[in-house]
C-alpha cells in the first residue's frame, strides 16, 4: 500500500479559504509524531468540553 501521487487542479474557492489557514499551527504539528498529534487533539477536546461546561454554567447564572 502506498499513497498514489495525484496532481490537483487549483480550485478558486479552496484557494480563497486557504488564505485564512494558519500555517504556523500546521508547521508545529508536522514537527510532532502522529501519536503526539492525537494526544494534542485529546487535550483540545478536553479543553473544549471544559469551555462548554463553563459557558453553560455562566448562562445558568445569568437566568
Amino acid at each position: 500500500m502506498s499513497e498514489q501521487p495525484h496532481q490537483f487542479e487549483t480550485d478558486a474557492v479552496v484557494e480563497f479559504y486557504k488564505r485564512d489557514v494558519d500555517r504556523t499551527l500546521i508547521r508545529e504539528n508536522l514537527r510532532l509524531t502522529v501519536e503526539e498529534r492525537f494526544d494534542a487533539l485529546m487535550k483540545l477536546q478536553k479543553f473544549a468540553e471544559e469551555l462548554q461546561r463553563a459557558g453553560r454554567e455562566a448562562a445558568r447564572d445569568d437566568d
Partner: protein
Amino acid sequence: MTDFRALLTLLSRESVEFIIVGGAAATAHGSARLTQDLDVVYRRSHENVARIVNALGPHNPYLRGAPPGLPFSFDERTIWAGLNFTLATSVGSLDLLGEIAGGGDYDKLLPYSISLRLYGVECLCLGLERLIYVKRAAGRPKDLEALAELEAILEERVGRD
C-alpha cells in the same frame, strides 16, 4: 472526550480491518482542527463484522443522539442491515462507515492507505492526497475549510521534502 487510544486498541486487538478517514485522518496528517470522533471505514466481510461486534460490544455502543431506550442491539444482524453507523460508546464517539462519499468502500480505499504505528498498534489511515481527493469529490460546502487546510498541509510537506 473520545479516547482515540482506547478505540484504536480495541479495534486492533480484535484484528478489525479498518481505515481511519475524516477528521482523525486529517489529525494524523498534521491538521490543527478539532474533531470529536473517530471515523473509520470497515471491511464488510462476515469475519470482519463479527470482529467489530466482539471489539465494541462490551463498550455499550448506541446510536449517537438517539433517545435512550430504543431497541438497538449492536450485533452482526444490525450491521448487515445498515451501512454507516454513528455510535456513542463508553470510550467515545465512533463513526463506523461501510463507505464514504467520493471514496467508496474499504477495498477501494485500501490502495490509497498508509500504515501508521499508533499507541503500539498498526493502523491503516487514508493517505493525505486521497483524503483531499475524497473531500473534493464529495463536494460538501461544510468541508471547504478542512479541504483548504489539507491542501496547505500538502504544500507544507512538499516544501519540507
